[in-house]
Structures are given as structure tokens and as C-alpha cells.
């Protein structure tokens, strides 16, 4: 039985000084995929500025806004309607011969094909000499190990909003072990990649019905490429496998390629931005 979701995203920006020239790009439209289809996209802004649609370098849809007049305040509201198939995260044949998959990971062809998602980025670089303590069990298959890693990250960090920012590195995270979904995801990505397995950052919306973390903001999780299976989603913030409550928007190597809002504006002084997300589901 498919689920029908309606999502609203809103953002409000206030600037201390008049902004003469600006352009924003939003990466907030849910992707169209096998199990997810977008039925309606609405986007408004308080200045009635022209809106155009484009794609980012990974092919995910973006919304661009260019105000035609100077302003100090601007707000944006987007609403989406989509239909999502019920997903069973365990819906694949469990790998029989783990050794074969481990050797696939080592083949040059595999490593070249997945180079982008194997290489550490600035957000996913483990500090030198760090020993976070997760033990990989080579006797077990990759999927099982990653499930354990997912739980390990969930236990390792305490979900605490306001401690970290979008610029927080793993080095800082290790000091206080507190953070939000980006931080969980970045740590998870770093550790998966360390074990020579491709992994990518995913941004999207989480349906809040079950009281998960990360419901009033955009959410982040990870996808891991498991040989013979393909990309599998893991949500370390909630110690979950990604399922029907996760509505994907985009993926990239880390947060920097999935940032929901990129703005280029020419102004001095302070600014305040606030975002809010609501996800509702009708069955």
C-alpha cells in the first residue's frame, strides 16, 4: 500500500543591511526514484521574485531565486506532494560468500568505479591516530558489519542540537561526542570508507510519526554500496535501516554537496536564517 506524503519546507532570512544583489539555490525537492514519485512542487517567496528550476552537478533538481529589488527580509515556502512505495529494507538476498565480496572491494575496477565515494573529504577525514574503537569482524559479511557500525555510531554520539554547526569536523566531534544528523552521518561515512567500502551522504526528509530524531529539520543519512546488492541506506542517527519514512532529496560525497540552501549575496553585517520542515503522511 503506497504512502502519500506532503512536505512543507520554509526558510526565513533577515539581514542587518539592505541586500542589493543575491541569488539562492535550494536543494530540497524530493528525488524521483523507483520507490518515490513526486506529484507536485510549489515554491513561493515573499518578494515574488522570479523562480527557476535547474539541476545540480549530480543531476538533482534545484530551485533558484533571484530577487529583482533590494531587500532586508525574505522568506521562502515550498510544498511537495509525493507517493512512496512501502519499502522493506531487508528485501535482498543475503550474501552467501563474504570472502568474494571482500575481494571485489580490492579489485582495481571496483575501486576506480567508486573512487568518489571511497575517498575521504574534508568532512569525513578521521583525525590522525584516532582509534574510535569500532572493530570490524572479517568473518562476517559486509552488510552485517555495517549494521553493527550503524549501531556503534548511534551509541558513540549523543544526539544534541546546538553543539555543532555545518562546519564541524570529525576532530571536534571526537572531543565532545555530541551532534546532530550531519555529524552522525559524517562519522559513519568516514568509518565505512576507511574499510574500503563506498559510502555517500544523503539528505532528505524523515517522517516524524515514530518520534525519531531529526524531524523538524531536513535529515541526513548514508548509503553504502554493498557488492552484489547495491546502494543500501543506513540512518545512524536513529540506528535504523532506511525505509518508507525516509524521503530522499539528494546524495553527494558529504554535506557540502547536499546543502539544502546555497546563497550568493553581496552584503555586510549580520544575518539570521531559520528553517522549518513538516512532513505529513496519509495512508
Amino acid at each position, binding site marked *: 500500500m503506497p504512502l502519500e506524503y506532503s512536505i512543507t519546507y520554509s526558510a526565513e532570512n533577515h539581514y542587518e543591511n539592505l541586500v542589493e544583489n543575491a541569488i539562492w*539555490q535550494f536543494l530540497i525537492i524530493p528525488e524521483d526514484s523507483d520507490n518515490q514519485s513526486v506529484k507536485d512542487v510549489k515554491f513561493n517567496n515573499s518578494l515574488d521574485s522570479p523562480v527557476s528550476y535547474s539541476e545540480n*552537478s549530480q543531476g538533482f533538481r534545484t530551485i*533558484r531565486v533571484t530577487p529583482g529589488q533590494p531587500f532586508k527580509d525574505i522568506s521562502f515556502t515550498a510544498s511537495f506532494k509525493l507517493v512512496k512505495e512501502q519499502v522493506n529494507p531487508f528485501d535482498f538476498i543475503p550474501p552467501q560468500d563474504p570472502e568474494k565480496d571482500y575481494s571485489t572491494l580490492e579489485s*582495481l575496477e571496483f*575501486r*576506480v568505479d567508486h573512487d568518489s565515494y571511497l575517498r575521504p573529504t574534508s568532512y569525513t577525514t578521521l583525525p590522525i591516530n584516532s582509534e574510535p574503537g569500532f572493530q570490524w569482524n572479517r568473518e562476517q559479511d559486509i552488510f552485517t558489519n555495517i549494521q553493527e557500525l550503524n549501531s556503534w555510531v548511534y551509541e558513540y554520539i549523543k544526539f544534541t542540537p546546538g553543539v555543532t554547526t555545518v562546519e564541524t569536523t570529525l576532530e571536534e566531534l571526537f572531543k565532545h561526542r555530541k551532534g546532530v544528523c550531519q555529524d552522525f552521518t559524517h562519522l559513519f561515512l568516514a568509518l565505512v570508507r576507511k574499510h574500503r567500502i563506498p559510502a555517500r551522504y544523503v539528505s532528505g526528509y524523515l517522517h516524524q510519526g515514530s518520534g525519531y530524531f531529526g524531524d523538524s529539520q531536513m535529515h541526513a543519512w548514508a548509503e553504502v554500496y554493498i557488492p552484489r546488492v547495491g546502494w543500501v541506506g543506513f540512518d545512524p542517527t536513529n540506528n535504523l535501516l532506511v525505509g518508507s519514512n525516509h524521503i530522499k532529496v539528494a546524495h553527494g560525497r558529504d554535506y557540502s554537496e547536499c546543502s539544502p540552501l*546555497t546563497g550568493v549575496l553581496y552584503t555586510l553585517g549580520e544575518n539570521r536564517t531559520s528553517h522549518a520542515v513538516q512532513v505529513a503522511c496519509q495512508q
Partner: protein
Amino acid sequence: MITQTNPIFSCYEYNDGLYDEVFNAQGETKELYETLFKLYCGHSIEDYMQLNNKAKSSFFNQGITFQVYGEKETKEKIFPFDLFPRIIGAKEWDHIESGALQRSRALNLFLWDIYHDKKILKDGIVPMDLIGSSANYLQAMIGVDPPGGIYNHVSGTDIIKHSDGEYYVLEDNIRCPSGVSYVVCNRTALKRALFGVFNHYRAHTVTNYAENLLEILQSVKPKGIDFPTCVVITPGMYNSAYYEHSYLAKAMGVELVEGRDLYVENDFVYMKTISGPQKVDVIYRRVDDLFMDPLEFRADSTLGVPGIFAAYRKGNVCLANAPGTGVADDKAVYTYMPQIIKYYLDEEPILNNVHTYHCSRPEELKYVLEHISELVVKPVDESGGYGISIGNKLTKEQIAEVREKIKKEPRKYIAQPIMSLSVHPTYIDESQSFEQRHVDLRTFTLLGDKKDFVLKGGLSRVALQKGNLVVNSSQGGGSKDTWVLKDN
């Protein structure tokens, strides 16, 4: 030391260890230069000085200058120019031309491959890590098809003549190679000053560069466009190469735009003109790729056009050179050029690469450790000249240190023989006479859709400091007009 009797070359000193392009070891003029030498001997040194000053002021008045920033006022300086031209015979040139073209083609195929199927990486010819770890390998370019399949529309190849008389490539520049305007200016200045000498040689013109560049740009137009609007984009008039940008725009008869003159709407690019927006199809880019789109690359860039990369990705506009070409002109990629040429073209390289020893390979490591005093040792992952040791300038202790460094991390180092650039007689203001100075040659190659072009000529850069091997203009280098002779 042999002394000439003629005033103009009277103080010319020979250094036995150097390869002089004009005089042979006996001090006799080489055949190619005989006529020229006689003509120059007709001038007294005073005469020559006067011509030299005239040429300088002509550059100055034309505003062919670069800016030197001082505390109060910025000063303008001319790029030093030498009136004694360099001549390259037809046969020798054929060799250079076909070699430069071969390299550009191979690099283009290499770029297509590493941004698409990555065959050369999967076959292990070039290490994946070398490419993947490069800051110039743009993830955003993976899977993007540039119009016409061309990445390096313009390549500048730096070539030297070694003391063995052979040409070697030192570097391929395929980001935004500059200098071509000086080739044209040098020719103009020499024609003004010494028009008489041209009658005695049949040199190829260099002024056809711009028309060929325009044809190349038009050939890579987006699909469905018959008459593309081409523009040149510059960072602005304070950029040191602004003269070149404006020269090229003028010579091609196209607009010279800055980022703020363009905007993107629905993935098409427009320029703001006095009669409203006009669509732009092909952009010859003289702004670094990471500055081209603040929404995609460096958000702090004010030189770019927000959204232009998405327009490019859609194929609605062509950028030349393509973003992400920089990955292929890395020092480390250079060392794989012979293999790259062989892999894609199944040809032997026409121009020599400077031989490179990879310390990661045991037998080569052994050679390097034993010959450090004859080699230049470079770390593979540093740029801008950091960490380079030049063997013949090192003390015994330093050699031992370098040896230890290499032994510790052999993978990190490569080594090359010390190359000696040929010398060319160059007029030196301070001594008011001709002296031997090292020169190199930058050639300019254009690649388009079913069209290519190599400029018959180039920028011969001169290291004005005695004994200096660095020819860059930032290091006080000058240049010479370079004649490529027609076949007789």
C-alpha cells in the same frame, strides 16, 4: 673565449658548456642565422640601442604593460622584449608542431576518459590515486559531455632545447595558458623597428591566431545553434593578463565580458547589453574554473556567473577550456605522458619528455640514490616549486639528507636529470652588449570539433638574469620574436 670583431657582437662571450642556437662551438654563425647576423652587424651598438628604446616606448604607448603594485602608485612595466629574433627552420618546426598536436590530442582523450569510463585507470596505466587525490579533478565534471568532445581547446606547451640539441617538453599548460598576445606584439614591434630584415627570410605570420581561435570556438557550439555568439570572459582590467584578454576579444571581434555582465536563466546564459539580454553560446574562459560558478565551486568568487555550470552541464553553453582540465597538467601526470600518448593514439611520443625516475620502482630508486648530484628531485604531491632539490647545487651533507628523505618514503619522490636550456644572444641593457641567455619556447595549440591549429611561432621566453634557468615573467623574464620559416 672567442671575441667577435664586429661592434654589435664584440663583447659576446661563449660558454663551452651551453648550447648556443646561433653560433657553433668554433664561434661561427650557424647557417640559419648567417644572413640575419650579417644584417645586424650592419648596425652599430648605438644604432641598436636607439632602436631598442623606440621599441620599448612603442610597447609603453600601446599600453602593453603589466602592473607592479607599489605602496602608493601602481607602476606599469613593459614585458622586456629583445630585438634579436629566434629562428626555427621548417623541418625542425614540423617536428615541434606534430609533437605539440600529438600531446594535445592525447591529453584531450585522457581527459574524456578520466571523466567517463576511466579505462586508463582501470588498466592501471595511470594510478587512480594520482587522479582522485588531485584538487583539480572536478567531481562535477564526471559524466559531463563537453560540446564537440573537446576539453583542452587551447594548450600551451613549454618546450626547451637541451644541450644535446633535442627538444624536450617541460610542461603542458591546459588551464588558461597565456602569452599569445605577446607573440603578436613582438612580431609587430620587430616589424616596426627592423622591417628590413624580414625581406631576407620567409617567416610564417602569427596574426592568424585570433581567427583560428574564433573558428575553434565556433566549432564547439552547443547543439542546434547555427551562428554561435562567442565571448571572452576576463576577471577584469586589474588582472595581469587583461591586455591579452582585450586583445583576443578585439582580434576576434567578440565581446569581452566580466562575470557581472552575464546571468543565467533557465539554464541559458545571457549577457546584459544596451538593447537587452543576448544569449551567449561559447565562452572563452580566462577565469579559473573554480571561480566560474559560486553556486557550484567557490562560493566566495565574485568573478563568476551563478548557475553557469548547470547551463554547461545541460549543453546550453560551451566553456573553453572545459572546467577540470587542470587535472591533466599536474607535474605527476606529466611523467605519464609517454604512456598516455601510447595508450590513446598508439603512437610513440614525437617530443621527448624529460626522463622521470619513479622512486617507487626499486631499480629506479637505486639509480636515483646513486646519482642525486646529477638529478632534480621533486616530491610528487607538492606544487609551486616546494621541496625541490637541484642536485648540482647541493652540498655533500645536503645530498645525504635528500638520500635519507627518499629512502624513508620512496613513493613520495620522483627525480629528473637536470636540463640545460639552450642559449640565445640577447641584448642586455646594463652591459650594453649581447650576452648568452637561456630561452624556452611556449607553443600554442588549438583543438576544436574536426579542426585543429598550431600557431607557427610561439613565445620564446628569455631568462634575463645571467645563468638563470627560470624564464617566467614574474621572475624577470623577457621574450623574443620567434620566426618559423616556410619550407623552401
